[in-house]
């Protein structure tokens, strides 16, 4: 398969700060490529450069064979974008928004009616097409935006945090669209997200990004496999002391404390669990619960980015402000 997107030492710097640092990725035709990372990792900056909104400080990239700087107009014609923040005109109807998009992207007039009808059907907004957008819910607007991104039949669809601020049901709905889309249209999708489950469910390959760099890139399955072994979740009356004990006596290096539990990654969980309990007992520590499970993407993420998700609070805020922005319209 030939790459649809190719970046070579792509960099965006703001004075001394490098938002995107020496990025080299290639995205294959027809895949869903997930860019996973905390807020401020450089995902949106990367997408903005690929969409020709921002000019790279150095390095280069091609999208659908066109250089993002020298042939920005051609790149724009071959991509569809769903932005992180809402970008519809709420004084116009759904159909008018789609029609405007079709005209801006010079979809032939004879094909407009047909394409708009198809897209409306895909995102299940046929019955609301002629209502003003201000009467739409947040999820409906998002669906319309995804539909709008498809009107001109782009080769690549960029989805920047497509489900931020949406309720679980709507998120599920939108995930299904994205999956269906890829299967039905042979479209390449670049998805940025800070939701593990979103990246896990949708992506063919995931690049974990932090501080402007890609830490690791692989299929979700293989990423999980790279964390060899099992994860043991332990809740005890003193996780910190237990962590030290396990390091000293059992030589566990891969440990971290998250909220009220200690997570230990070990090659063979079944055999170490009794020894953990024994060690705790000998040192008068009380274990509330101990659970053995397979590593999930979150473990992978934390393994590679190190420490906890640093935007835990900003993530919430971000979601809230997105809701707020939708609400005030």
């Amino acid at each position: 398969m030939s790459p649809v997107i190719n970046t070579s030492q792509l960099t965006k710097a703001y004075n001394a700060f490098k938002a995107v640092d020496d990025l080299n990725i290639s995205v294959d035709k027809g895949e869903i490529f997930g860019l996973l990372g905390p807020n401020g990792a450089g995902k949106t900056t990367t997408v903005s450069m690929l969409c020709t909104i921002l000019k790279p400080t150095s390095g280069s990239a091609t999208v659908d064979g066109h250089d993002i700087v020298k042939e920005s107009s051609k790149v724009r014609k071959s991509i569809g974008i769903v932005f992180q923040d809402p970008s519809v005109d709420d004084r116009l109807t759904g159909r008018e928004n789609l029609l405007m998009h079709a005209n801006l992207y010079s979809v032939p007039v004879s094909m407009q009616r047909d394409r708009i009808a198809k897209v409306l059907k895909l995102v299940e907004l046929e019955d609301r097409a002629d209502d003003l957008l201000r009467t739409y819910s947040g999820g409906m607007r998002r669906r319309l935006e995804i539909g709008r991104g498809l009107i001109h039949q782009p080769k690549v669809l960029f989805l920047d945090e497509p489900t931020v601020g949406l309720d679980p049901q709507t998120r599920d709905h939108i995930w299904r669209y994205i999956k269906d889309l890829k299967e039905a249209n042979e479209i390449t999708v670049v998805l940025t997200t800070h939701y593990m489950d979103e990246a896990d469910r949708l992506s063919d390959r995931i690049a974990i990004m932090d501080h402007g760099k890609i830490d690791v890139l692989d299929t979700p399955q293989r990423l999980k496999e790279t964390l060899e072994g099992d994860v043991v979740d332990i809740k005890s009356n003193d996780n910190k002391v237990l962590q030290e004990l396990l390091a000293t006596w059992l030589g566990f290096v891969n440990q971290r404390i998250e909220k009220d539990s200690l997570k230990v990654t070990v090659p063979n969980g079944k055999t170490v669990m009794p020894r953990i309990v024994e060690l705790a007992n000998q040192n008068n520590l009380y274990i509330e619960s101990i659970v053995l499970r397979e590593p999930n993407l979150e473990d992978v993420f934390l393994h590679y980015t190190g420490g906890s998700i640093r935007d835990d609070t900003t993530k919430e805020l971000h979601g809230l402000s997105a809701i707020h922005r939708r609400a005030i319209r």
Partner: protein
Amino acid sequence: MTELRGIYTLWLREVKRFIRDRVRVIISFVQPLLWLVVFAAGFSARIAIPGIDYQQFLFPGIIGQTLLFTAMFMGISVIWDKEFGFMKEILVAPVSRFSIFMGKMLGDSTAALLQGVIVFVFGFLIGIPFNPLTLLAALPLMLLITVGLVSIGLIIASFIGSLENFGAIQTFINLPLFFLSGALFPTTGDSIPGWMQFASKLDPLAYGVDALRTVILGPAWTPNNPLYVNLAIIAIFDLVMIGIGTWAFSRMKK
């Protein structure tokens, strides 16, 4: 062709948005009415313009003012679009920044022009003789005046991030342009201080108001400049503003 379609699409959007905002269209009647009725009634006793009734003198001025205020106000659409994200949708479209600026500018100009026409027709209701031919003659002139003024509003809005700031800056520009334009009183003649005569020469609207009087009042009005000079100056101003506007829009990121 792509570019023309882009311009048309953006023009249509602005016009649709304007027409749907009925409250604004109706309320914007009120201000010109106050000037033409209340202000004119109080002021006409103080000021004498040879050969012309003060209300008649004021009328083209208030049309100019309506164009100015509406045009500047339309700049708010840029801030609105930035605020609600729609600007990004436009900016990433495969349409040049010149076309984006032209589409928005022509759309907003159409809106301002409609507002001006409403006042124009309305003048007849308060006793200013209305002649459809005069309106026809004034229309292209009004459009010419509006283009430059709308551009000022759009350019400022493209640099400004918030509605509050835009409101403050708008007033800061509106009032001097209005007062120095000669809309309310003549800005030439011995009784006018030299600095004001000079400042008035720098006011693009002054040429517009003078031209509007020439067209609307006919021979009763003694123009400051011949009509063609006024037209040429306004046209040059428009072109310069379109140039600056295109530049301002091409540096806009979202």
